Every structure is written in structure tokens, then in C-alpha cells.
């Protein structure tokens, strides 16, 4: 399909701009743009059609089953899209005086209350833009807490299990901490012997996803909390998998001191092809003084943004956070009410049902009941038929399904990480299981079917190595070398070594 730039025709227009009958002040010459940007020139109907055509080359939850592990691809209620567009929300400037934003602030206040109840913690900052930023904010709180106690210089280590999302170690580095990895035991829990040897007075804390990326609840969580708190360290809960335990078990009750909540996973903010997200954090009272500013507060005159927090770590993004995400997630929570527990129950039921249907056909590295997701291995298929996890994934596309997460977590070879979520019907789960079982048979009978998959997507398998080795990262407007980029730009790419 052509790029929008390839459809451009000089002189065509898509949107009229108001042109008041006023003189345009002259800009000094050194500030003036002399070469116009090569934005596309299309009529309005052509623009609409271009992006509609792009949408038909994409697959969302609305299109079909999307069991992408650790991403919680659940139905996104359409009422929420209507609500976020209400003029009183969409048209509200974030810097209005608090008296003009009482409805927005009340919504944020209520959302904070719900998050406190769900996490079992004392205070909330809605500001972080996504889970990763929640992590980084949480680690900044660790620094601030220990600095306040005169321990920041000596507590430098953050413990992270080998099953963790890549964001955890990346956040540790960005926060200026050092990483201490800890192993997983044969049941899929943190290896307690390994852990005990690694936690001491130099430890700032733990980052843990529970249930883990293996979809397993750590059975020793109470002992883990004793180890960290006994050493004076703090515990961070990566809320990526909170969909398993809402109303079932609360991170605060497990002993965690900071939690981030992925509003775009558990609370149904649509993922939008990569974003937006929302990553509020909830904290124990000992960390409340350090929360980012502003904080939503309430007093006799109403709701207000409180900036007067002398121990705050400061601001981590603009304004009070991604408000539109709050509207959608708040609406989702209010639609469920106290029955939210059932959301997690059904998510776990759906996952265990799929697991039961698949565990004889694929290797199950940890033979336990799962929580909201589970990890299978295609190792046997690879050994016996030369078919890898990626081939299973691509073949699933031929059956009309989005593939699961593959090759993660790293501790499981040829991993297939499957998360059905609570919104799927049994027939959908059965159809997916039937496809997964058919693929096992195909692997033995006609492995080329898998190697060559997918067969009916808009493109066949793509050459990712070429994309990385000869980067073409923008359209070149015909101003090209063989490599598809202006020579000057290509030279700059080749200039830079890969970061060691």
C-alpha cells in the first residue's frame, strides 16, 4: 500500500484554516522558514480513506482474539470513548484554576480512592504516564525515603527476579541504582536460598511482579516480605499482572510499599497501537510525603491540586496525569463496582481452561494451576520437527488469531505466553485451543506450512535484520541513494557504532 506521501498531489487541500482579515506580522528573516515541510497534500476524503485503509491492515481486540501475554488485551467498552469526549472533559484546559475543574478533580479524587482500596495502600499519585514511568517514580521514592533517613548513599541495590519484565532492570539503571538478579526455583517462585544471600543493609528494595510473568503467584510472598522488611528495605509491585488478583489479594497486604497500576491493562484504557497508558502509583503512608506534585486534595471548599509538598520528589510529567485515561478507567471501575472481583476470577478461570486444553500438547515448564496467564514451551516441537515458537505464532495468524507473546519470559525456552482475559467467550477459547492443537499436528505432518506462515496477511514475514542493518526510518521523497535515504543521512547512520 502506498504511503500517504506517495498519494500527495501538489495544490490539493484537506482542511481550511480561518483567515481573518488582518495583517500578518512580518517575521525577521533569520526566523522564517524558507523550505516548506513536505507534508502530504490530499483532500479530506482522501485522508479519511488512507487511514481507513491502514486500519484494515491492522488487528485489534475488536477484530478478534488477542491473547498477548502480560498485555491484558481485554474488551474496551465503547461507552468510555463517548464519555471521554464530553465537552466538559475534552475541552478543559489543564491550567485552569481549580474552581473551574471541580468535576475533573472529583473524578481524580474518586479514582485515587478506588485504587487505594484495590491495592490496600494509603496514598496515590495519578501522575505517571505508563507502567514504566510508575516504576521509575517508585524508585525515585525509594531514593527520597532513604535519603530522608540518611541511608541513600549505602542502599544501592535493587533485587529483581530473572522472570521480570525488561522495564524493571531498565528502570533500575535510569534511577541510578544497581541491579541484583535473583533466580527462580523449580516451582516458579523466587529461589529463597538465592534471595537470602543477596538481601542486606546495602539493599534498597525488591521489584516483583506477582503473579509473575510465568502466570504464577509466588507462594512464599509472606517470607519474601519478611526478608526485605527485616533488612530495612522496601518492596515495589509491578502491577502489570494485577488483572489476576483484583479483590482476591492486595499488594499492600502482601507487604508491598509501592505499586503501579497499568490502567491500560487492568482497567481497559485502549492500547491504541502502543499507547496511551496510565501508570498511577499507590504507596504506603511512609512514602506519601515524597509523592510527585501535584496531589489531588480535598478540603471544605472543594477539590484542589496541592503543590505544597516540601519533601516531594518533584514532577514526573506535565499536569496531574493523563486525564482522558482516568475517565475511561474510572468509568470501567464504576461499571463493575464491588463485583470487580469477578473480573479477576473469570480472567483466571479462562486462563486455566485454556491451559487445561493445551498442556498435553505443549510443554508446561511449571505444572501448577495458573493465574490470569500461563507460559508454554514449544521446545519439543523445535527438537522434533524444527518448528519454533515464532512459527506457531505466525501460523496462528492464518487461523485468525493474534499470536501470544513469544520468547518471553526469558527463563523458558521457546516460550508462548498466553493471556486470554476475562472478556472472551468459551467458544473463542475453544476455537483458539483447537487451532493450537491443529498446529501441533501440522508441525509433524507439514512443517513448511508453519515456516511459511502467515499466508493471508497483508504482508508475508518481514526481514527484520535488514531493517536494523540498513535503517530506513522515514520516507525519502525520491531524494534517495540505493539504501533509500539521502546520502548525508545514511552517512550519519553508518557513523555510529552500536552501543556496547
Amino acid at each position, binding site marked *: 500500500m502506498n504511503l500517504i506521501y506517495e498519494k500527495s498531489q501538489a495544490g490539493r487541500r484537506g482542511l481550511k484554516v480561518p483567515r481573518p482579515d488582518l495583517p500578518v506580522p512580518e517575521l525577521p528573516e533569520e526566523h522564517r522558514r524558507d523550505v516548506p515541510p513536505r507534508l502530504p497534500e490530499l483532500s479530506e476524503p482522501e485522508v479519511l480513506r488512507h487511514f481507513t485503509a491502514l486500519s484494515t491492515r491492522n488487528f485489534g481486540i475488536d477484530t478478534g482474539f488477542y491473547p498477548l501475554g502480560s498485555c491484558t488485551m481485554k474488551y474496551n467498552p465503547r461507552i468510555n470513548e463517548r464519555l471521554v469526549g464530553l465537552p466538559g472533559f475534552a475541552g478543559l484546559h489543564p491550567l485552569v484554576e481549580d474552581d473551574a475543574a471541580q468535576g475533573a478533580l472529583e473524578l481524580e479524587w474518586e479514582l485515587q480512592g478506588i485504587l487505594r482500596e484495590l491495592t490496600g495502600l494509603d496514598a496515590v499519585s495519578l501522575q505517571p504516564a505508563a507502567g514504566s514511568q510508575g516504576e521509575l517514580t517508585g524508585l525515585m521514592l525509594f531514593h527520597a525515603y532513604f535519603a530522608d533517613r540518611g541511608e541513600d548513599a549505602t542502599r544501592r541495590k535493587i533485587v529483581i527476579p530473572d522472570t521480570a519484565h525488561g522495564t524493571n532492570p531498565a528502570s533500575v539503571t535510569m534511577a541510578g541504582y544497581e*541491579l541484583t538478579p535473583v533466580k527462580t526455583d523449580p516451582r516458579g517462585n523466587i529461589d529463597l536460598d538465592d534471595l537470602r544471600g543477596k538481601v542486606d543493609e546495602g539493599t534498597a528494595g525488591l521489584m516483583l511482579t506477582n503473579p509473575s510473568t510465568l502466570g504464577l503467584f509466588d507462594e512464599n510472598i509472606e517470607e519474601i516480605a519478611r526478608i526485605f522488611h527485616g533488612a530495612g528495605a522496601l518492596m515495589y509491585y509491578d502491577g502489570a499482572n494485577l488483572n489476576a488478583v483484583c479483590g482476591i489479594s492486595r499488594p499492600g497486604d502482601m507487604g508491598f510499599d509501592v505499586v503501579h497500576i497499568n490502567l491500560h491493562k487492568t482497567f481497559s484504557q485502549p492500547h491504541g497501537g502502543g499507547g496511551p497508558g496510565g501508570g498511577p502509583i499507590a504507596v504506603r503512608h511512609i512514602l506519601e510525603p515524597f509523592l510527585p506534585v501535584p496531589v489531588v486534595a480535598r478540603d471544605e471548599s472543594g477539590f484542589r491540586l496541592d503543590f505544597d509538598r516540601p519533601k516531594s520528589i518533584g514532577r514526573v510529567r506535565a499536569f496531574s496525569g493523563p486525564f482522558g485515561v482516568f475517565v475511561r478507567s474510572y468509568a470501567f471501575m464504576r461499571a463493575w463496582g464491588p463485583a470487580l472481583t469477578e473480573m479477576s476470577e473469570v480472567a483466571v478461570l479462562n486462563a486455566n481452561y485454556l491451559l487445561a486444553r493445551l498442556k498435553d500438547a505443549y510443554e508446561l515448564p511449571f505444572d501448577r494451576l495458573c493465574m490470569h496467564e500461563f507460559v508454554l514451551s514449544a521446545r519439543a516441537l523445535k527438537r522434533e520437527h524444527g518448528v519454533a515458537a515464532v512459527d506457531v505464532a505466525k501460523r496462528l495468524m492464518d487461523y485468525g488469531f493474534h499470536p501470544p507473546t513469544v520468547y518471553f519470559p526469558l527463563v523458558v525456552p521457546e516460550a508462548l505466553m498466553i493471556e486470554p482475559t476475562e472478556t472472551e467467550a468459551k467458544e473463542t477459547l475453544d476455537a483458539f485451543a483447537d487451532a493450537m492443537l491443529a498446529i501441533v499436528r501440522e508441525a509433524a505432518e507439514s512443517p513448511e506450512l508453519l515456516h511459511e506462515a502467515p499466508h493471508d496477511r497483508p504482508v508475508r514475514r518481514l526481514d527484520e535484520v535488514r531493517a536494523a542493518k540498513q535503517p530506513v526510518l522515514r520516507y525519502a521523497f525520491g531524494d534517495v541513494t540505493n539504501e533509500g535515504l539521502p546520502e548525508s543521512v545514511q552517512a550519519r547512520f553508518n557513523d555510529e557504532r552500536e552501543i556496547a
Partner: protein
Amino acid sequence: MSYISLTDSDREAMLAAIGVASVEELFRDIPDGVRLRRELELPRALSEAELQRHLEELAARNVADEVCFLGAGIYDHHVPAVVDAILQRGELLTAYTPYQPEMSQGVLQAIFEYQTAICELTGMDVSNASGYDGTTVAADACYVAKHATGRTRVVVTEATNPQVRQVVKTYAPGFGLEVVEVPHEQGATDPDHLREVSADAAAVLFQHPNFFGCLEPAAELAAAANDAGALPIAHVDLVSLGVLAPPGSYGCAMAIGEGQSAGNAMSYGGPHFGFLAARGDLVRRLPGRIVGETVDTAGERGFVLTLQTREQHIRREKATSNITTNQTLLALAGLVHLSLLGPQGLRELGETCLALGGYAKSRLVDAGLELAFPDRHTFKEFVVRTGRDAREALQSARANGIYAGYPLGRDYAGLDDSLLVAVTEKRTVAEIDRLAEALGS
């Protein structure tokens, strides 16, 4: 409403297939001491009709219908209806990050087109797929500069958006960076002063047009940074780049900014998108997703996430950033808006902002107010002295249905009487006349 699809008989059949007697049994791995043995204390469930009424009531408690001259980083631009129509396409709205390119060519091609648009507007070689907002991309850019130069000091102009400066300062200790601010002089930065403090700096970050709406001596600021071996980073407004020179043309290493002006409603501050574009030699240090062109096994063009060895899911603690979820859908909104405008429309949009801004300045001066920085050229925004406490002036204008601007006293010493007034293409001559009347009285 119901967001789940199981019937009671489905549940029974599924429990039987699993081999457990009850849903409760599925949670047997959770130690009893950490189980919540009570109902959640949450407000009662609402039907769809009740939910709509409840949210409408909350929305009605906001005041979003005053004539908006408030800017300061978020602007009341028109969002075309086509943007809404595209963003509601479920295939785009409800998709995840395009890890599986064969399922995601729509989003991948859109991001490639977005990257191209950002490069064209900024005059840079490469763009990532978006950052969270205009503040976090500033911290990201400083992190890139630290690793690219091996230096640990960043210089930020005081005339850069206060929230941008605050976020850079919040991130700086973890990054091992020290932040130095350069004061403005009569609404803009003195290049000689900047030159003095830029020695040994990793980066020089300046906003242009700056927070006051004033044009900075951008080329001279960039030259001062380059001469010191620091990376010049320009924080810019996409809407200005139809009329203003692109940062790439005056020597910047990176161009960043808040993208809300393109295609996004104000929405009380988000979600919007931050953009981050850079010179080609910095590409392998950039944070976040980047889409590249390639071919499939049949030789057809296609798009994939690329240069992923920078990223957290591959490189873990050695990644260039922890960013995962970004702002793709809002960046798409920006692309759709820019595609509707085209080069001519974007230039006209800039000219209309200039024309209305010029008219507003002259009307306010006629009404007896003073411009704070009368010798500066401005774009879309300017500072006016109200002759009294600016918040008082703001409140009295609000009584006339005019939200007159942003009081600068909370961020800048000596500007307690000053309002930052923004004029987008949505404002009319009549509304500006009302503004002058409201502030002049």
C-alpha cells in the same frame, strides 16, 4: 452492561475440564494470610445509562466554556472531525504495540509516516514513535546527550516551560546529571550568557518560541552550544513550524516538544504525545519505539519495529530507556491533522496565529495595558502586564466569560502582574475585543 461472556453452564464445563470444583480452588496457591476475605468497598455498579449520567454530571462541574486565551504549553486548537473518525477505528484503537508486524501493518505504516512528518517539520534525520509528553521527552533528550557526550551537566534556559524544567530536574539525580538554568533577559536568552555557562555541558535545552511566546535568538543559542561541544536541543511547537525555521536548519542536535497542538483535545492535560527527533548519528541512543522499512519474503515493502537492541525488552538494564507503552494513538491524531493541513494549511495556521496574536497585542495596548517584552517578536502567545495582580485580573475577566491567560507570578519573579495570553486560530476578532475590554476595564 456486561463485559464478560461466560454463562453459568460454561463455567461448570470449564471447571470440570480444569479438574477443580470451584473458582475458589483456582486461587489455592495464594497464601491465606494475603487473601482478601471480604467484598471490595467500592461504589455500587452502574448501568451504562447511569454511568453516562454520572460522568455528564462530573463534566458539567468543570468550566470549559469560557473563551480560552490560556496556553502555556497546551492550546485550544481546532481538532478536525476526521481525526476523531480515524481514532475510533477499532483496529487501531484496540491494538497493542506492533510486536507482530504481519498483524500490524496499519499502525506500523502510520508510525513510519508520523516519523517522516516529524523529520520534515523539524529538519531532523530521525524521529522515534513518540514519548509521553513535552516534559518527559526533555528528560529523555538530556539522557541521550549525557551518553553521547560523556558529560554530566545540562543547561536549560529559564524561558523554557517551567513544567519541562521541573521534570528534567526530577529525573536528573537518577541520570547522574546536574541542571543549570540560564535566566532570561527581557523575555529571551542572551547568547553570550549562555555561551559562558555551556562549557563542559552535555546539552543546552531551550524552548523556541519560548514559554513567553517570544522568539529566541535560536541560531545563536545553538551555535553557543555547538561551540562548547554540547548538544543543542530545541523544544518547539509543531504548529509554529509552518512559518518558523526548523531546528535542523540552525544546527540543533535534537528537536523535541509537546505534540498536543496537532490533533489533540486539551483534555485536562492528557493523554497527548511528546515528539523526539534527532540527527542521524544519535539514532542508536534514542529512547522508545522506532519503525523502519523493510521487505517481506515476497519482496514487498513492509514495516517493522526496528533498532530494538536499544530497548528494554532486549537490552534490559543496558537499554537506552525503560519506555514501553508510548503515545502512538495520539501521535496518529497528530499525523492525521498534519496530513489534512498539508504544507499550505500549516503555514496558514501559523500565519493566522501570528495575525490574531498581533491584533490582540495592539488591542490590549490600545486598552491601556503594557506588553512585558515589547521589543520581542512573538508567535501565538505573548505576555501582558495587567497593572494589578494577574490572578485578580484573571478572575474579573472570567466574570465576563473570558479566560484571559496564565498568571506568570507562580513561576517567575517580577511578573506577578503579568498574564501569558495565547491566541489560536479558533479565536475571533470579536473575542479578542472582549478580552481587551475585560482586561482594560
